[in-house]
């Protein structure tokens, strides 16, 4: 890694434990991947390391990667779960293309991840798991720790399990519980190696095992044993520091995209002064939004775990009809099932937010892997002419703001809005500069309270001249009793109408009112002002595209970057922006869905760069690709 450069070391002091203090090297950026069996607690270990790192003030980006199976057979390749964390003394946009350090808890974790670790990188490996049986399980003929197959890497062979069990020998815990604490030993070792503060982990262990004090003691002891092992063993000659990043002043917390999205929905309810009702059916990778929202009844959030995806959106729509902020959260297969109800919401012209945390498809596809291939479905996946607004989140923190924006559009324009997230931003995390509530947009809208016609009657489909929204006349309002439904409605009255001219008018009106939604102009980032190539993205590709663009600029290569939050309607200035570049490149984790929209809409032959591997782009691959395009312009 170009960014993994070492600064001047400090040597010579004695540590607090009396051992000769180790040399400390300064790094500006480190990427660590914790990998182990699904049951090894790697997600938790990664989370804790991230939290410690956040406390230190580094910028952070994380990427968990876990199997769809809850517990695949122990020790097998499908059972490997990993968590990658990048941290730096400057602001970073991605969790890193490749790790500098791989923590491998078993042979499967080593085998599944070694290809991603550049030569020269560090491997910390749990030797206790490298038994004949475990090696055979993953197809190692020989023990890679005992031959030269790991030559070129800096390998630290550590008996993580046995040392943990040894360290806990005096404590009143079972051998099984002692073995399970090995992830804390690994965390302690890594925390020592990268000079992380350990207080938050100690506090966390006290919270997590509050009901079982013996486990608090055991896990703390394992952590400390790992820390002390680093300090005393000769195997680790050098310790590292990554100084804090320059970050804007304020309060921060580390947040995943799913948590940020859920909090955005809560915030939208507060800023709209409306109760929030979520209808949801559990689905990976969206379920965490349901889990999070179910905790916030105090803030007026009701969650209904419905019998299926269709019921989930039905419940949300019923609540919206009653005047609530109706939300449904799901992933691609769920959106497919909700399609008919979204069309009904288009006809009813009620506010509704549909969150699609995209995963790799078609069908069940790769449920825990990321993709952006639901854009076509979001834009077009309904019967009849049924346009809806589409908004996409570009980073974990941005999920908060994108959720508020989706709710703003839904409420103000009385329309279904599809909010696209994906597995990458949903499960990834980054530090969040916590916003002031007063700075969040005011989302209040008015219910209809009386007749709106000049003749003193109520017209359910008489529109606001500015927003083209119809009145939100909720049941319970005296004098506004009316009937709505999926049958085509007459303009203004909302009565059933089979009149051809009326249908033509209503179809065009529904299209026009979505097209007329006020969305901000797209902004272009081009510090040089001289770029000839524009790279256009949407959603979670923001991080890798941004990192690639920066890397190019650092090398004197000009590139302009623009990122779309609004996929429907598109920003009004987009055509003009696109036309001002010689070439437009669109990287997407699909086979060119936005590229096709842009081609059709603006008649620009964009360069589509596509990948559907269930993994985000690396910034390096985008950098290489963009440089090639720029060279040929």
């Amino acid at each position, binding site marked *: 890694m170009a960014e993994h450069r070492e600064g001047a070391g400090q040597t010579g002091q004695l540590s607090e434990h009396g051992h000769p203090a180790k040399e400390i090297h300064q790094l500006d950026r480190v990427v660590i991947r914790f990998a182990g069996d699904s049951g090894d607690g790697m997600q938790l270990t990664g989370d804790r390391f991230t939290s410690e790192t956040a406390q230190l003030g580094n910028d952070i980006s994380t990427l968990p990667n876990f199997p769809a199976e809850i517990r695949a057979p122990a020790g097998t390749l499908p059972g490997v779960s990993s968590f990658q964390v990048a941290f730096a003394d400057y602001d970073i946009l991605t969790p890193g293309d490749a790790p500098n350090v791989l923590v491998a808890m078993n042979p499967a974790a080593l085998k599944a991840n070694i290809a991603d670790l550049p030569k020269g990188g560090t491997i910390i490996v749990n030797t206790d798991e490298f038994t004949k049986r475990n090696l055979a399980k993953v197809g190692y003929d020989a023990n890679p720790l005992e031959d030269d197959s790991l030559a070129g890497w800096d390998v630290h062979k550590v008996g993580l399990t046995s040392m943990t069990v040894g360290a806990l020998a005096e404590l009143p815990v079972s051998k099984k519980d002692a073995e399970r604490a090995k992830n804390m030993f690994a965390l302690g070792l890594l925390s020592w190696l990268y000079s992380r503060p350990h207080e938050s982990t100690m506090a966390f262990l006290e919270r997590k095992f509050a009901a079982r004090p013996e486990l608090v003691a055991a896990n703390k002891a394992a952590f400390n044993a790992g820390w002390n092992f680093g300090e005393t063993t000769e195997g680790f000659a050098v310790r590292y520091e990554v100084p804090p990043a320059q970050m804007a*002043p304020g309060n921060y917390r580390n947040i995943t995209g799913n948590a940020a999205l859920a*909090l955005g929905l809560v915030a939208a309810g507060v800023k709209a002064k409306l109760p929030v009702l979520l209808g949801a059916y559990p689905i990976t990778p969206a379920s965490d939004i349901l889990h999070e929202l179910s905790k916030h*009844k105090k803030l007026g959030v009701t969650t209904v775990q419905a*019998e299926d995806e269709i019921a989930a959106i039905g419940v949300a729509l*019923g609540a919206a009809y009653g005047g609530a902020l109706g939300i449904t959260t799901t992933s691609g297969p769920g959106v497919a099932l909700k399609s008919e109800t979204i069309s009904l919401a288009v006809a009813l012209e009620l506010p509704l937010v549909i969150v699609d945390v995209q995963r790799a498809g078609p069908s069940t596809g790769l449920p825990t892997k990321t993709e952006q291939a639901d854009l076509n479905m979001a834009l077009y996946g309904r019967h009849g002419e049924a346009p809806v607004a589409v908004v996409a989140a570009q980073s974990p923190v941005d999920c908060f703001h994108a959720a508020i924006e989706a709710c703003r559009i839904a409420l103000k324009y009385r329309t279904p809005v599809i909010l696209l997230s994906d597995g990458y931003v949903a499960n990834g995390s980054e530090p969040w500069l*916590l916003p002031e*509530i007063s700075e969040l947009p005011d989302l209040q809208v008015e219910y209809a309270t009386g007749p709106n016609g000049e003749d003193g009657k109520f017209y359910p489909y008489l529109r606001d001249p500015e927003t083209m929204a119809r009145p939100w006349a909720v049941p319970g309002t005296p004098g506004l*009793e009316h009937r709505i439904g999926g049958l085509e409605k007459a303009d203004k009255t909302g009565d059933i109408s089979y009149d051809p001219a009326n249908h033509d008018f209503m179809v065009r009106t529904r299209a026009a009112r979505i097209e007329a939604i006020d969305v901000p102009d797209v902004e272009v980032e081009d510090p040089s002002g001289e770029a000839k190539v524009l790279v256009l993205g949407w959603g979670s590709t923001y991080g890798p595209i941004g990192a690639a663009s920066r890397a190019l600029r650092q090398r004197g290569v000009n590139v302009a970057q623009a990122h779309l939050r609004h996929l429907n309607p598109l920003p009004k200035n987009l055509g003009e922006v696109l036309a001002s570049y010689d070439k437009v490149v669109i990287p997407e984790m699909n086979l060119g869905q936005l590229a096709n929209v842009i081609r059709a809409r603006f008649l620009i032959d964009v360069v589509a760069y596509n990948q559907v591997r269930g993994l985000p782009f690396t910034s390096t691959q985008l950098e290489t690709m963009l440089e090639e395009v720029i060279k040929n312009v």
Partner: protein
Amino acid sequence: MSNALPVQLSAKDFKSDQEVRWCPGCGDYAILAAMQTFLPELGIPRERTVFVSGIGCSSRFPYYLNTYGMHSIHGRAPAIATGLSVSRPDLTVWVVTGDGDALSIGGNHLIHALRRNVNIKILLFNNKIYGLTKGQYSPTSEIGKITKSTPTGSSDAPFNPISLALGAEASFVARTIDSDRKHLQSVLRQAAEHQGSAFVEIYQNCNIFNDGAFEVLKDPETRDAYLIRLEHGQPITFGKDGSHVVTHPAGSFGLAVSEADKVDAGEVLTHDAHAEDPAYAFALSRLAGPDLRHTPVGVFRSVRRPSYDELVRNQLDAAKAKAGEPEADLAALLNSGDTWTIL
């Protein structure tokens, strides 16, 4: 929203300005008229009454009532009504559905609304046929039914809607007939008063595609022998001058019909709609054969258990009791967990 003072309304107040477009002679007219004359006696303001329907002939019902209403999509009315009911406890929410809408495409939503005991009143107009799509067999059509889509007879066995509702843990289950306004209104009244889901099957004649499906229950020549009127706390007798009774033979899981003079008075079953064990109501629901002989009408089961709405509301209220100013609570929420400060 509005206060709950009883209001004096008449049937006319509940008629919308829309032209009713069912086929002349359809049983739906009778049900609509019964509903329009029944609603005023509830004393609930029009604006707090909502009818939600799915798709099918019966689902046009909301258009003809001057209340709030939504004509939604096929089978989904119970789900939409659930969202409305749980978020708006001040409303009275009715679902109007048919045998295809509720039992075929929407079967899942029906059973889950019933098991949750959502505070909605579900009226299932059962005409044993698909009307709006012009005459295919439905999930309540008898096996062997010859229709446009089954020219040599259908091969699938029908649902018994009452048995199904009981199996789905429904707390209120009743059956009535379109042509008997008095009985229909009496059942609607009990359904409206029930806290939780009320399921009412209404036998409804489709005079175009399945005419006379329930004729034996209406024809003065046959109805006494075919129809059993259930009254809570009353012995279950039927037939001319109480000629027949329902008993529970020892050693049997089911119920039986006997001639009144062949059994002791003590053996005649007394109807208990409030029996906790649904097995009794289920046994009642199995009395009738495919020929409709021994069809009970009335309230099969009416028991009190907490509604979904109440349980959800209780949790919300408990949480809200601890709430402060919303923006302050939101700020506290965002700032919770492991936070740090950059100066």
